[in-house]
């Protein structure tokens, strides 16, 4: 797959990040919601004496699963196929999209209803299906709003976190020809009415999967709205797309994950609906697409294996001081926040996402809350190391020259003196030159910040004066 297609159109990471930082109205809703979620989470998890045990148990189970990925995938395939599912394997997003289109064509599908799935975001499935002349409708309310607005989700659990009720009301007025309202209940009713029609007339339904259970061949899917239940039972065909890292060894391990996921994801003790789907129902067809799309590249780097244990709860986004200010789009790809910074560089490549690991203060709030205890700050540092050793934007000629010049300047007193003089002159000059003339990299910094004032005499000069 050409990973260039995967990036948000026209959004280089740095630019998007700056825009997020620069438009407080845009990121305010995101930030406030994230803070509320974090506070709620602290109360919920603090009340459970077993919370830390669960995290350790979940971490151990997921690590064990990653270490046995090949065996577990084959076991899952065998068991769910025995219950009537057709299992397909896709190496790339492109291949997976082709499979979905082939299934759709084979069954003469004209419209598809979709439950929320980050994997299909990753595949850009909607665009591919549209190009093939197949109508797709996102049915999760947040995803539906984002799809109508022709935008991307800003959060992996609550996709339309950045839009106010008024904005949603205007959108529904414009796109669905409904009278304007900013009432939450009325907005939800409008979506319900429109999507009911879609569910009932759809020829195919799609979903993701939270846990693929190897020993029984079961898919566990959690949701609150009922749209996954409807997407997977109303149309005659159900296609589930699953990242290969979603497999866990046994049904016996599921309870600990269900206890963790709802509490960190949405602050509930269980989501309204938890589906354990095993195989087809009479008269219906079930297809499973197991997708690699760069996940085996993570396996190639043993220090990065833990990134594959993520259960996509979204909590690391909520606690992250960078995400709270910058919002989801700033990360330039479908997975935002700390988890995005450690998986996107693997999935889309260092060349595209090499700057992501640097967009962190390494404060560690993410790994404090991660339900599977991923060592996110360590992963970030590891990726920073890789980003400056491999072809990446963090390893550009300008960066290399800068560091070489720094090393040169630091390796002799005279050179150091010269460099310090150059800095003083440079900072003064940058203050005088109008901001619009600043070169791109400098402007990214000076646009939102004041230049420091050059202090009085340099220390060395002052020191000399003290001891004549």
């Amino acid at each position, binding site marked *: 797959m050409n990973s260039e297609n995967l990036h948000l159109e026209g959004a280089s990471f740095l630019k998007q990040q700056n825009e997020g930082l620069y438009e407080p109205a845009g990121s305010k809703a995101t930030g406030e919601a994230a803070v509320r979620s974090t506070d709620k989470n602290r109360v919920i998890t603090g009340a459970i004496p077993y919370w830390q045990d669960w995290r350790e148990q979940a971490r151990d189970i997921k690590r064990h699963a990653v270490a046995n990925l090949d065996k577990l995938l084959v076991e899952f395939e065998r068991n769910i196929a025995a219950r009537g599912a057709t299992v397909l394997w*896709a190496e790339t997003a492109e291949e997976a999209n082709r499979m979905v289109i082939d299934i759709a064509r084979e069954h003469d599908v004209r419209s598809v209803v979709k439950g929320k799935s980050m994997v299909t975001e990753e595949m850009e499935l909607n665009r591919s299906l549209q190009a093939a002349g197949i109508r797709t409708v996102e049915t999760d309310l*947040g995803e539906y709003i984002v799809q109508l607005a022709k935008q991307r989700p800003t959060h992996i659990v609550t996709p339309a976190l950045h839009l106010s009720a008024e904005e949603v009301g205007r959108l529904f007025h414009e796109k669905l020809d409904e009278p304007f309202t900013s009432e939450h209940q009325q907005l939800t009713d409008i979506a319900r009415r429109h999507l009911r029609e879609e569910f009932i007339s759809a020829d195919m339904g799609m979903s993701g999967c939270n846990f693929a259970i190897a020993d029984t061949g079961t898919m566990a899917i959690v949701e*609150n709205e009922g749209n996954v239940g*409807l997407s997977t039972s109303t149309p005659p065909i159900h296609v589930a797309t699953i990242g290969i890292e979603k497999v866990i060894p046994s049904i016996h391990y599921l309870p600990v994950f269900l206890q963790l996921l709802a509490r960190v994801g949405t602050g509930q*003790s269980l989501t*309204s609906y938890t589906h354990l789907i095993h195989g087809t129902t009479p008269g219906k067809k079930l297809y499973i697409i197991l997708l690699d799309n760069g996940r085996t590249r993570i*396996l*190639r780097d043993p220090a990065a294996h833990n990134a594959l244990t993520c259960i996509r709860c979204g909590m690391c986004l909520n606690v992250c001081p960078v995400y709270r200010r910058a919002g989801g789009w700033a990360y330039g790809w479908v997975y935002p926040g700390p988890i995005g910074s450690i998986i996107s560089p693997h999935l889309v490549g260092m060349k595209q996402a090499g700057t992501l690991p640097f967009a962190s203060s390494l404060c560690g709030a993410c790994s404090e809350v991660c339900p599977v205890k991923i060592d996110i700050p360590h992963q970030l540092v590891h990726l920073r190391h890789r980003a400056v050793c491999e072809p990446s934007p963090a390893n550009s000629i300008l960066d290399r020259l800068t560091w070489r010049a720094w090393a040169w300047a630091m390796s002799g007193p005279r050179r150091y003196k010269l460099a310090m003089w150059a800095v003083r002159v440079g900072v003064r000059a940058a203050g005088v030159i109008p901001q619009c003339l600043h070169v791109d990299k400098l402007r990214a910094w000076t646009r939102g910040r004041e230049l420091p004032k050059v202090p009085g005499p340099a220390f060395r000069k002052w020191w000399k004066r003290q001891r004549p």
Partner: protein
Amino acid sequence: MSSRDNILQRIRTELRKAPAPEQPPVPEVWPRMNPSSEQLVEQFTTALEQVDGEVIRCGSMEEARRKVTELAEQLDAKPVGAVDCPACRDLLSDFPADRVAWTRDGWDPKQMAQLPAGLVAAELLLADTGTCVVVNDTAEQRLMCYLPPVCLVVARVDRLFEHMPAAWEEIARRTAEPQQRGEFVFITGPSRTADIEKILILGVHGPRRLMVILVG
């Protein structure tokens, strides 16, 4: 080589380098307290009400039949949709035939969406979260849980478990049965969303009301 072979080959090559951790033990999750059945009912009711569900407690099947008749009147449910299973048949045995729409193969979802209420039977209940575990073998049974605006669930008090781990032995055994198809759905309250400004709204795609008729 197929994509399947390529993916598995890559995984095997990379995993050979990494040491495999031991298989972790099955977590206990919550300790067993073995509360009395009255405590379980109380726990279940509190938990379900917290997530905006309703509990209709009935001491006997006769009482349940009477209450469900009243309820159908109140909801103006003519007819009530119901899953064709012994528990639902039993509960609706007083209903005239034209007042019940039983699930049958090939039922049109469009018709099902018109039903004012749907009755399903829960096989297990989890007290700590107020959860009903419903086993759906067919698509029609599944739709009965999600399409009508009111979801009625009939369940017996002796099927109450204190929490998910206590019920898991039975759930795990049944999901492992090779002839098992369809889904087990854990229903905890009515359909809900907080996707617009994180404000909670009930009944976005699924039922707005969830009423559990607890018998025994």
